[in-house]
C-alpha cells in the first residue's frame, strides 16, 4: 500500500517535472497518469501494492472534490449574474456531446463490421 502510494507520487512528480520543464499546458498529474498508463501497457501487469493504493484512493475520490468545490463560495456573484448562459451551455453541450459521440461510434463500428446486424430491438 505504501509502496503503491509512493509509486503514484513518483509518477505525479515526474509529470509535474515534465510540465514545468517543457512548459506544456497539460496538468502534471495528467502527464503522470499517462506515463503510468504507458508503463502498464508495456509491463502488462499491475503490481499488487499499486492496485491497492489506487483502488483505495479512487474509492474516496468524491470526497477529494469537496474542499476545492467549496471554493464556489467566492463565485456566487458570478453565478447569480451568468446563470442563464452557464445553465444553457451545460445542458446543451452535455446532451449534444452524448448524441454526437454515440452516433460517431455506432456509425464507425457499423462500417468496420458491415455483416453484423444491429436491428434487434
Amino acid at each position, binding site marked *: 500500500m505504501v509502496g503503491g502510494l509512493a509509486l503514484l507520487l513518483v509518477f505525479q512528480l515526474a509529470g509535474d517535472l515534465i510540465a514545468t520543464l517543457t512548459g506544456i499546458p497539460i496538468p502534471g498529474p495528467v502527464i503522470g497518469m499517462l506515463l503510468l498508463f504507458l508503463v502498464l501497457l508495456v509491463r502488462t501487469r499491475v503490481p499488487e501494492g499499486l492496485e491497492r493504493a489506487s483502488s483505495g484512493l479512487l474509492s474516496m475520490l468524491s470526497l477529494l*472534490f469537496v474542499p476545492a468545490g467549496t471554493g464556489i463560495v467566492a463565485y456566487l456573484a458570478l453565478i447569480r449574474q451568468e446563470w442563464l448562459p452557464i445553465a444553457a451551455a451545460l445542458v446543451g453541450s452535455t446532451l449534444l456531446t452524448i448524441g454526437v*459521440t*454515440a452516433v460517431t*461510434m455506432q456509425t464507425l463500428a457499423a462500417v468496420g463490421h458491415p455483416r453484423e446486424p444491429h436491428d434487434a430491438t
Partner: protein
Amino acid sequence: MRPNPTAWSALLYGPLLWLTVTLLVYQAAQALHTRTRSAWLNPVLVSIVVMTAILLVTQTPYDGYAEATSLIHFLLGPATVALAVPLYHRLNRLKSLLGPIAGALVVGALAASLSAIGLGKLLGASDTALLSLAPKSVTTPIAMGIAEKIGGQPSLTAVLVILTGIIGAVGGIPVLDLLHIKDASARGFAMGLAAHGIGTARAFQIDEETGAFSGLGMGLNGIVTAIIIPVLVELLHLVG
C-alpha cells in the same frame, strides 16, 4: 474561565476542526444519497452546498478553510495518477473496437469543449465562465487542473463538472434512445465521455458492458481534453 485566544484561533482555523466537519458532512450526504438514490442528491454536490452554507453562516473565510483542508486537496494529485489503473484494465479488455473508439473520442472531445464554449459565448458568458466551462465533461481532478492551466477558476469548474455529470446521468439515456443508438459500447462510451464518473455510475446501472465502455470514455477523454483545450483556447484567442 475564558479560553486562551491563540489556542482558540488555532482550533478555529486548524485542520482538525475543518477536516472533521468536512468528513461528517460528506458522510451524511453519502447516507442521504444511499437512502434516496436520487441523481440530483449527488453527495459531492450536497456536501459542497452544505459546506458553503456553513462557511457563510460562520463567516469563515474560504482561504482559511482551504488551508485547513489542504490534506484532502493534496490527494487529488495521486488520485488523478491512479486513474491509469482502471483505464488500463478496461482498455485491455476492449481492444477490438479501437478504430471506432478513436474516432468517437476525437469527435466527442471536440464537441464537448467547443459546444460549451460556443453556447456560453453566444449567450454572453464572461471569459472566466467560458474558461471554467470548457473542461466540463472531464473527470473533476483533470478538469480542475485544466481550468487552472488556462486561467479559469478551478472551484467553479468543480461545480460545473458535477452538474454536467448529473445532467448527463439524467438526460443521456433519453437522448440515446431518441437517436436509436443500440450498441451498448456506443451508449456507454458516449455517457462516460460526456458525463465522466457520474455518467459512468448511471451506465453501470444498465449493464456491465455499458458501464465498462463508459469508464473507458471517461478515462480517454480526460487525456485528450487536457491536450486539446489549451490549443483550442489559443486558437479561439480566449485569454485567461
